[in-house]
């Protein structure tokens, strides 16, 4: 008798705890908005407005300080940040198909382009704040003359390097392709691997070839639109050397041996252990080197794929386009938020808080990281373009090619460009 009652009680506890843990999983990452005295007078009309909740979906955290300042200025609006760290495109796709309640949604550039024809996005072409942003940023959010949003943060595609190794070998930061090869040869001669880049996380290994995008755009800003529409082809002669730099580095043995199976997290670990001198990556990886990283001094320089005499074009990655959903229940509040973040002092706050540069002109804080000054200087002293996004069928075709090259399979580079073109044709409208 006692046995069955005890087991019944245990079962009940188990069932209840299962239910509670399933329901309690709701995110609690919204701290209660700052109350207390505000130094910005709330807009007059706000006093008699019904409370509004503005949902913002993003893949990285939204700056909490900016949210607090916005809620101070408009007390009737509560911002509900919704961070989706994984499978972002798939989750948003599901919500759009089911016309879920959304207001502001970050979109990747090629993701945004998918939805433009479907009437999913608010048209922001006539908003006054467009002028506050870098032109290339507005261009990224514009399709066929209509602006649907602007990307906010930008990162640069760089090579992180071990300053200790460079100092010991008396090396200078390279600014041309020839200088980079020279530096690599000297590092290899000293017994250290020049580069580490892994291979398992192909998105992380693409920068030595994707770095070419900047040079192509510098010559023709619309080259990627033309590739997407069929006006240009990946097999055209200007693009023939796309995989050239990467192949050259592999052929000269400048990548760490046996490292193709490393995922990005492991690559960072290997670089931090000093097993390679250089690590190509986007500057968001500055987070990996916080102030207490003391193993060696880290520096960063833009990837010099340019031959001597050609300009060094810095690739800026800016892809978090703030868009408004056309069926949002609060279009006015969406516009208020977009206007708010376009102001340079809000942008500076965001830049400090998210430790990155922003596309609002004059909105980047000069102190968002200890390397920031060196990096911002080299970015600003060179030409820069914004990294394009490729159409959806490109990456599954492109990324395995990188692995083939890194694996020293020596694929025919012309054939690879043909495969890229074939993949591009699958996305022709």
């Amino acid at each position, binding site marked *: 008798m006692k046995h069955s009652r005890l087991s019944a009680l245990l079962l009940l506890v188990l069932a209840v705890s299962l239910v509670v843990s399933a329901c309690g999983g709701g995110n609690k990452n919204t701290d209660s908005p700052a109350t207390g005295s505000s130094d910005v007078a709330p807009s007059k009309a706000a006093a008699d407005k019904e409370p509004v909740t503005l949902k913002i979906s993003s893949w990285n955290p939204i700056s909490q300080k900016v949210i607090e300042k916005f809620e101070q200025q408009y007390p009737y609006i509560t911002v509900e940040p919704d961070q989706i760290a994984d499978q972002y495109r*798939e989750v948003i*796709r599901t919500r*759009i*198909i089911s016309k879920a309640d959304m207001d502001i949604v970050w979109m990747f550039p090629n993701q945004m382009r*998918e*939805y433009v024809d*479907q009437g999913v996005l608010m048209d922001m072409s006539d908003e006054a704040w467009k002028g506050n942003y870098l032109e290339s940023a507005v261009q990224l959010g514009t399709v066929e003359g209509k602006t649907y949003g602007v990307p906010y943060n930008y990162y640069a595609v760089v090579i992180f390097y071990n300053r200790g190794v460079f100092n010991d070998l008396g090396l200078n930061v390279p600014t041309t392709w020839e200088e980079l090869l020279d530096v690599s040869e000297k590092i290899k001669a000293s017994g250290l691997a020049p580069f580490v880049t892994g*291979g*398992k996380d*192909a998105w992380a290994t693409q920068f030595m070839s994707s770095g070419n995008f900047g040079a192509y755009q510098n010559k023709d800003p619309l080259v990627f639109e033309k590739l997407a529409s069929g006006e240009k082809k990946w097999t055209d002669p200007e693009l023939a050397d796309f995989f050239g730099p990467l192949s050259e580095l592999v052929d000269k043995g400048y990548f760490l*041996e*046996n*490292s*193709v*199976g*490393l*995922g990005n997290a*492991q690559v960072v*670990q*290997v670089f931090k*252990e000093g*097993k390679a001198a250089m690590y190509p990556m986007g500057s968001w990886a500055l987070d990996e080197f916080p102030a207490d990283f003391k193993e060696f001094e880290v520096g960063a320089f833009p990837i010099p794929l340019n031959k001597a005499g050609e300009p060094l074009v810095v690739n800026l990655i800016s892809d978090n386009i703030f868009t408004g959903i056309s069926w949002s229940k609060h279009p006015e509040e969406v516009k208020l938020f977009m206007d708010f973040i376009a102001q340079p002092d809000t942008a500076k706050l965001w830049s400090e808080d998210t430790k990155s540069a922003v596309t609002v002109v004059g909105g980047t804080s000069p102190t968002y990281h200890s390397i920031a000054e060196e990096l911002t200087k080299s970015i600003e002293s060179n030409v820069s373009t914004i990294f394009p996004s490729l159409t*959806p*069928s490109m*990456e*599954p075709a492109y*990324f*395995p*090619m990188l*692995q*083939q090259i*890194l*694996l020293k*399979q020596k694929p025919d580079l012309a054939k690879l460009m043909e495969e890229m073109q074939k993949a591009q044709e*699958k*996305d022709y409208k």
Partner: protein
Amino acid sequence: MRILNLKTFLLFLAPALLLYSLFYAGPIISGLYYGFTDWKGISFSANWIGLDNFKNVFSDPLFATALRNMFILAVIVIVVQHAISIFLAVLLDQKLRGVVWMRAVIFYPAILNTVVIGYIWSYMYSPFVGFLPKFFESLGLDALANIDWLGRPDTAIYAISFVIIWQYTGYSMMIYMAGLQGISSDIYESASIDGANARQKFFKITLPLLVPAITVNTVLSVIGNMKQFEHIWVMTQGGPANSTQVFGTLIYQFAFKTSQPGYGTAMAILLSILIMLVTVSIIRVLGRWEVKQ
């Protein structure tokens, strides 16, 4: 017992029928439809393109890779896994000290989360930072220590197979133990009286009488391995250089990463047909070997 009346009968049936239609029948039927279209996955509209998707699948070089890997997984994993689990089942069927604990330890990986297993094993395989290379190094086996198991096209699929065998050996061992329980000990006794040794007992008595269990286990394993997705996706994502692609990863890639879910659905349909064909063949072949006690 008589059915009260048709209406009550249908009302009781309705909830289950509803769930079944919404989550099984509905998607299967709509899947069959979309496999013949060029559906882009955003709206529900799509253009009928007949057998074009299927033609493209057959001419896709990745299809050949997927078939090859599926063959490796289905044959190698099953042969090795089941040989080991039959051996373990016979071994642990005896009354040894701590045998229950041993069975639990061997079975344990089967209930662990596959994604966690994938991540931990891919870390273990990692050159420079992983356990396996450091272990080989400490044994002085530098040649083995330098192999990038998951990063080389020629070793990746086998490295993944090992993890799958590691995870599911305990599971098939349990099914074989259940099969062993069904063999009456009288047969073994009379064989001993006739002078049979342990090896003869195993090959002439145990194995033939285990054939029903082998059939069940093999069919389950084959279906599971042909549908394989999680291990490969977590450990190599179909790489390096598409060398570990299987149907599961290709379908996921086409359905969700590129905007070609119609093509992905066509692949899924092909996979289902293949699984059905293989399963029926296995049951037929193994059924002929069944020996009744």
